[in-house]
């Protein structure tokens, strides 16, 4: 009869084994106890004297160092004491090691012996007394009572502890809130180095790229992709809050902001995965209004593009809040610049150069151009601005040196970026100006709908820039999108769905191409191609020069596009509707 092997015998008693095991257990127990006591004693002794830092030895050494001549007696004393100290240290070390192993061995023997003893004198399973019906209910009720009591006891203990041990840190009122500008001044020394112009060109630090005039320094951007099938789409993520600002890229990070009436947030995404690396909600700074000012629907509360500069990123919002974070998302400084007096909402993007951050803070009254030190947010210089605008500053390395060029109602103004002194001014604009300047072939080019487009040239041999109007053109012009220039042509994309190319030497129309949708995003020049995204997300890629030579018209999805793409090495980042897309391999 095949019979399953019975399970191991349980509950077998053996008095002999029990006795032997108990004996072993007692011995090993005593042994372990002794070793433990010795270990504790050793530990206490060593911590008490701390042989490597004996005060006496230290004192002797100082004595010797202070003495003009080597004193043989003193030296002998030091040597003796040092020997003792080292011996104490190393003996204690080896004792600890040996003691630990002995204790481990002792405990293993003890446990084995105890288990053996227990196994051979088992507690036999036996029926208990009568069914504890009454006891069952009493114990249940009792447990409930005890639990309630303990809960109350804990709450009371928490209160007593809170009352007896309050936190003793000087009040914050005596100090400025951490987020306000200036407090980070201490950090200033550590971040003195700022990214060079070459480094900026390897990134996409601001609205319309390095310098902000729409020229990418890579010519490897993709021309073919399909968002529907995912072809050549590296990743696509949703941006939590809305915003018309454009993506900026520094190293492995893409930065964006988003805001509603209640909340302002800055986001940092990973360029490789699209994963949200961090997102920060702006705290209130002193002067931050309870409610942001009224803004136009198309402007929104986060129209201004951020600027990334080295390990810093700065963002500004419609309520005048300006915050600076480091690459890890730690707030370095922040402030409210005063609520902008601006009927469509503040939309001018930030720009950075060397150690300075530039804010074109044009308003109906008290407009300003502000330069802040990126390290600590302190004002480097400010100049007053007469007229309102919605354009963004550009910074160009001209033959005359770096120039910070701004559009406003009526004027184009150029400033020295480091000092803020005015370099030149030209009156050639009109109306509510949102497009920012373009630069190409040594000329600036500005345009605004209902005004004229103007090419500004400079006498080549003058030491100081003297602007003059090269030519003007006054037909269909952009009212949101900014132009872009090459050596030979200027390109504009208008809200009326035209792409216009003007010859920069003559000011003649080279060609006009009509497309299906108008443009808010600005065209970007990448190598010999121009990328222009219309409001429905069709990306018109065409060759520079004459005649109009389309390359492709891929789409970034059906969502409305307000933001200008960031064109990097083999990649383009688009903000389309709620999404941030990375195109490329």
């Amino acid at each position, binding site marked *: 009869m095949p*019979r*399953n092997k*019975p*399970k191991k015998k349980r509950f077998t008693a053996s008095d002999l084994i029990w006795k032997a095991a108990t004996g072993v257990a007692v011995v090993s127990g005593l042994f372990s106890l002794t070793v433990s006591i010795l270990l504790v004693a050793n*530990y206490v002794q060593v*911590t008490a004297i701390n042989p490597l830092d004996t005060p006496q030895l230290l004192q002797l050494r100082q004595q010797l160092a202070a003495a003009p001549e080597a004193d043989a007696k003193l030296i002998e004393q030091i040597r003796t004491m040092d020997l003792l100290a080292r011996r104490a240290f190393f003996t204690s070390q080896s004792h600890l*090691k040996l003691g630990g192993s002995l204790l*481990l061995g002792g405990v293993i023997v003890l*446990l084995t012996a*105890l*288990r053996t003893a*227990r196994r051979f004198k088992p*507690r036999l*399973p036996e*029926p*208990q007394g009568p*069914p*504890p*019906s009454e006891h*069952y*209910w009493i*114990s*249940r009720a009792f*447990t*409930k009572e*005890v*639990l*309630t009591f*303990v*809960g109350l006891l*804990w*709450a009371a203990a*928490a*209160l007593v*502890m*809170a009352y007896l*041990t*309050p*936190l*003793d*840190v*000087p*009040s*914050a009122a*005596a*100090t*400025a*809130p*951490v987020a306000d500008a200036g*407090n980070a001044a*201490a950090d200033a020394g*550590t971040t003195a180095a700022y990214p*060079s112009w*070459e480094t900026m*060109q390897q990134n996409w630090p601001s609205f319309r790229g390095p310098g902000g005039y729409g020229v990418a320094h890579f010519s490897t951007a993709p021309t073919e992709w399909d968002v529907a099938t995912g072809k050549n789409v590296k990743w696509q993520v949703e941006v939590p809050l809305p915003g018309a600002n454009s993506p900026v890229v520094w190293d492995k990070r893409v930065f964006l902001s988003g805001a509603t009436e209640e909340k302002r947030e800055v986001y940092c995404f990973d360029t490789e995965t699209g994963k*949200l*690396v*961090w*997102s920060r909600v702006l705290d209130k700074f002193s002067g931050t209004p309870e409610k942001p000012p009224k803004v136009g629907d198309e402007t929104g509360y986060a129209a201004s593009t951020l600027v990334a500069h080295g390990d810093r990123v700065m963002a500004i919002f419609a309520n005048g809040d300006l915050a600076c974070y480091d690459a890890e*998302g730690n707030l370095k400084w922040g402030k409210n610049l005063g609520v902008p007096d601006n009927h469509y909402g503040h939309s001018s993007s930030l720009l950075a150069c060397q150690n300075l951050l530039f804010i074109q803070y044009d308003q109906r009254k008290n407009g300003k151009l502000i330069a802040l030190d990126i390290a600590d947010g302190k004002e480097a210089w400010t100049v007053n601005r007469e007229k309102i605008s919605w354009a963004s500053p550009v910074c160009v390395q001209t033959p005359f040196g770096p120039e910070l060029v701004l559009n406003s109602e009526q004027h184009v103004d150029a400033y020295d970026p480091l000092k803020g002194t005015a370099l030149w001014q030209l009156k050639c604009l009109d109306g509510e100006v949102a497009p920012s300047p373009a630069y190409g072939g040594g000329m600036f080019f500005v345009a605004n709908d209902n005004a004229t487009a103007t090419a500004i040239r400079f006498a080549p041999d003058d030491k100081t820039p003297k602007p003059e109007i090269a030519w003007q053109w006054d037909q269909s012009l952009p009212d949101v999108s900014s132009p872009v220039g090459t050596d030979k042509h200027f390109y504009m994309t208008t809200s009326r769905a035209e792409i216009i190319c003007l010859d920069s030497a003559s000011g003649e129309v080279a060609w006009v191409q009509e497309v299906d949708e108008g443009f808010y995003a600005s065209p970007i020049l990448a190598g010999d191609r121009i990328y222009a995204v219309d409001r429905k997300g069709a990306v018109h890629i065409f060759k520079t020069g004459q005649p109009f030579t389309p390359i492709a018209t891929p789409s970034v999805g059906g969502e409305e596009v307000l933001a200008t793409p960031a064109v990097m090495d083999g990649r383009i980042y688009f903000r389309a509707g709620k999404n941030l897309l990375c195109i490329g391999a």
Partner: protein
Amino acid sequence: MKLKLLAAVFLLLGLWTVQAATEFRFPMPEFESGYKHPAMSIPPASKTSPWVDLGLLAGALALSAWSVLRLRSRRYVFLIALVSLAYFGFYRKGCVCAVGSMQNILSAFFDPGYAVPLIVSAFFLIPLLFALYFGRVFCAAVCPLGAIQEMFAIFPVQLSSAVEAVLGLFAYAYLGLSVLAVYMGAGFLICRYDPFVGFFRQGASFNMFLAGGVLLLAGVFIARPYCRFLCPYGVLLRWASRFSKWHATITPAECIQCRLCETSCPYGAIVVPTPEDRPVDQRTGARRMGRLFLAAPFIIVIAAGAGYLSHEPLARLHPTVWLAERVAGEEQGRYEEKTIDGDAFRAGKRAATELYAEAHALKERFKYASACFGAFMGLVLCGKLIRLSIVRSNKDYVVDRGACLSCARCFAYCPVEKSHAAK
């Protein structure tokens, strides 16, 4: 253009190395004797592949489940525990650990920049999934912290259910505090106060050794005190195990109500049959229950309030708050001697006011977090009270799936087991 850029880069690099070289106080010598300096010893980190750890974890869990549910063998469970103790405990020094991994997972949620490798996620997840399907087989034999206590649990006694319930609350408090600490960025409490890891590495602070030793010695009689009354991960496993699909049963077949197993469980995980005679009738019971449900929100609010009020002592968990208080104390002369931390801070570039402001900002956040912690404790208390008030009638001796550690001790006590095995 490209050439220009390259030239610029070279120029920059060149300048930079020149600069770097000038930073050294003493020039590097040029040896005439042809001396070559020895190689630096930079040994790489342990070569144990994380996949080996993961494989062993999954394997040990599967074996443990198999031993408990199919073989119904305490001997095998014990052997697996020994192997786990040797590998995850003494060989891997306790630092690839499901219990602590919980904090890494939480960190990733509270701070999107915190990178958690897939392996750590798996270490957190797999024991939980096993608990959801097979009960706490992780606690039974795989967890090194459990295993070392199991070795010591030789003469276990049974605790009264009231003591068991009260001590059990500490595990929830520990869980709440660890989550609070991770949320506030105050570090990993579970790892810091792991009482047994010191034995695995033969190194820890004296106090941790003392705590571990006391727990192990107490564990000779009160089996597995850390698992039952402290382990935060055990709380999660307890929740998961309640819904386990297959769980260890005391008897392999029909319970014959012999009452022999009653004294076998050291963990209070055997639920005795409900007596027929209820002291209160159904309606009184329902009324009491209703009252408890009504009181629950108040209990939670009161607990949240207590938590809120104790935010200041709790804020000391955060190193910045601690440092701010210390620096302030040293400045106001509250302490006789200065600490390294205080000296280091004063030597740094930050202003003390900035540190205080940061501490206050943290304190403000602690208000909310501590209130949440208090509310959680209130919720736990209410949950326990409600569970105690619901009488689920059962006629047989069954397992409390939450409390049962699947240690397989009770199997030997069941006479049905023997006859079943003989078949």
